[in-house]
């Protein structure tokens, strides 16, 4: 029975949740490409805009986690 296939993908910009593992924080990139760091309380309501240095490596987080932080969409 078949069980393994991998396919390369092409990515495009869209609102997305990331984790900055080095900084231990949740980051959201909105449709305009602006980055936001989520707050501990009311994560989305209290979010703060940030600019990320080139050294920061963001890892994508599945979209269903957005609901946990009240991130729309």
């Amino acid at each position, binding site marked *: *029975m*078949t*069980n*393994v*296939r*991998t*396919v*390369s*993908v*092409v*990515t*495009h*910009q*869209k609102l*997305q949740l990331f*984790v900055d*593992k*080095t900084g*231990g*924080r*949740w980051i959201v990139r909105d449709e305009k490409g602006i980055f936001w760091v989520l707050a*501990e309380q009311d994560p989305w309501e209290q979010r703060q805009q940030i600019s990320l240095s080139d050294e920061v490596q963001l*890892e*994508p*987080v*599945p*979209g*269903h*986690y957005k*609901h*946990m932080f009240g991130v729309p969409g």
Partner: protein
Amino acid sequence: MNAEQVRLQAAPQEKNLWYKWGPYLSERQWGTVREDYSEGGDAWNYFSHDQARSRAYRWGEDGLAGISDDQQQLCFALTLWNGKDPILKERLFGLTNSESNHGEDVKEYYFYLDSTPTHSYMKYLYKYPQEAYPYDQLVQTSRKLNRQQFEYELIDTGVFDQNRYFDVFVEYIKNTPEDMLIQISIHNRGDQAATLELLPTLWFRNEWSWVAQAAKPSLRQIHADGSISVIKAVHAKLGERYLYCEGHVPLLFTENETNTERIFGVPNRSHYVKDSFHQYFINQFDGAINPAGQGTKVACHYHLSIKPGDCQVVRLRLTDTPPASASNGKKYAPFFQFGSILQQRKSEADEFYSGIIPKSLDADSANVMRQALAGLLWTKQFYHYDVDRWLEERGSDPFKPNRKTAPRNEHWHHMYNGDVISMPDKWEYPWYAAWDLAFHVIALTLVDPEFGKSQLKLMLRERYMHPNGQIPAYEWNFGDVNPPVHAWSTIFTYLLEKAQTGQGDVDWLKSSFQKLLLNFTWWVNRKDRTGRNVFEGGFLGLDNIGVFDRSAPLPTGGYLEQADGTAWMALFSQNMLSIAIELTKTDPEYGEMVLKFIEHFLWIATSMTQMGGDTSMWDEEEGFFYDVLRLPDGRSQRLKVRSMVGLLPLCAATMYDGKFSAEFPEFTERMRRFLQARPELRTSIHDPVKTGVNGRRLASILDESKLRRVLNKMLDEREFLSPFGLRSLSRFHAENPYVFQVEGKEYRVDYLPAESDTGMFGGNSNWRGPIWIPVNALIIRALLNYYSFYGNDFQIECPTGSGRMMNLYEVAEEIGSRLTKLFLKNSQGKRPVYGEAKKFQDDPHWRDLVFFYEYFHGDNGAGLGASHQTGWTGVIARIMHLFATTSAEQLLQEGTRAAFNELPSSATASIGQGRGST
């Protein structure tokens, strides 16, 4: 009618209540496609076993010996800790596809011992080592092995050598549909006292974290004293439930939420996360447990110290009855009459199976058959996958222009699956596979025809079947192509019910036929490249059987005309014809469809033997069918691999009783005119006009001459016929490998009776020699159809060269008997399925437990591949039943309908003894 039959035949509403709770918890949710949100679709590594204890699942839950409701809102399973393992045993461990030398493989010993169809009684056994489970040893040793070596198994680590393990038996007993008694019996098989932390665990599937509308459910301790602890579970849709735990039982609460600190490196927003019990026991961190006695996951902590040879029993009850509900004003006593209810359900299970398992079978055969059916019933799973939502959550919303490309299943966004489905194997293949499912139904209908019908119907629903008519294959690629056996399973199930009850479910058959028409048309429009009724299809479920990967572009260019693809379509046509004939009995309008499928069959069958001039699929010189390679420059050649691909045309054989011709002269006349105008359609295949025993007709690609030639090879022990059934590849290729050169590169097919030596299709299956039960079952079916037509006049030497002549019923029975011998004790008391595994052969606590493997060694019958593929290997139960309840004489008299009619038990006893088949 016995008690289980009463439950099965209750009105649908009441019956559905009995189905509400069952073994619907998967044994592996990690490493699945639906939990995979990686960019490149690397499901095995994205969500690992190591993460599973800490990371909340999105789509379903898993656990050890577990149950859930039919929407998997509330789950119950076991957690165990021997005090030495580096992690709690919350779920079965196994190697991923890349970690093992032959693909993914569960490294645990667990057995499905019993189940009734409504799950009113179920029993499971897990063997838990008392020494530290050798996680690392299994991974490291397997990593060093190559594809030519056998897999490294848990038994090989020596962890069971001194018998220092626990036999953990779990029994589920339904008092009522909503009142489940749970008994856990733990035996210390070792020679020293041993302790065990037993943690029966109750938890909610996490929906509240992902879905805006989902209210968070709750679990709360409402009572605890020295004799009993009680948990109240509240869920917006499910309502209230109570778990009663007997004895002094501390309750440990946490939340079924991701430990974001461990998984993502971001501090948790709550102290209480999915792996809190791990932190509590392994890291001895008391703060991991919620002291408020509430959460969404709870474990009942039993600290057991068991003397050597002793057994301790733990009892629980999951019910909708609250503590203060007794009508006599007294407190509810959950463990009052516990034992008598257990005994009653157990006896009812015995009574039910005494009506299913033929009395002619001896005790060992009955044990094998009952475990096969238990495995099938335990392998039901709640399968949840909303593909549109999944695509959206990974940024691949099919309706957004700036979406990411998804690694798979993009074109299946119509799919919403959220149902209890019969799985191939809840650890190795915890996702449905369309053609496997059709075989599961053949066996499941022995005990629960209604469930079988519902499963077939499910795959044809708008939430499953693609709008273009394709039936989904499996989650790794729903668009892959599986052999079209759904119609066969459908007509089988219909005729079975009709024979047993006197009334077929015509409405179900009619609605199935409509959807199957879409599927048939999809095949005709998509897989017949040239419109000449020769079909492709790619790997078609037979993974590495070809010299090339048949699902990939060919290294030669061009394309393959597939003998199996075309034969499957011939069989599909016959099955559709059978359904149309049945429907015509109540609605003559379907007569048009009878003609349609007669014509389809004739065109397809003829194309196998005539199309392509010198390179049709039939090789007259060798007397066998082969795939034909069509090259871009117009040349063509047969790929002469003698395999199951060439035997499948033999399977496209169906006997018709000839009554249709008499009852519908108008259609018969139209058919006569058609055949008169197209005489070539009758010249190279079996002549459909020819009558056989009792005026019967036969639709078959092979005429008598071709049939004899193919059978000569099939029944030759130097080729296909092994001591344990038919091989998937002829042994001829052991000395004569098939070699094909393309631009200096060699492609070859050798006879490989055990495991695959290539990574083709993940390398976890092998169709180059081993014995596979489902295709053997199809061949048995075909032989019985041929026998119904030819009768005793058709005799053939079996085995070839033995001088022993048999009719085709006897040949079918011989194959069935050889297959059954895989599982039964031989004259030395050994089960071939366990090969050289001494403990499985000799130890009294192991030797009567049976694994139903995915496939079997082509020479010695040892089990290979997935160890719990009771799914289609469970068809052995149908084969055992068939030959214990029919006779050649009956088949001659009644035709293939005889297969659905049980003989009286006294008759089966004498037939069974007379033939000595099992």
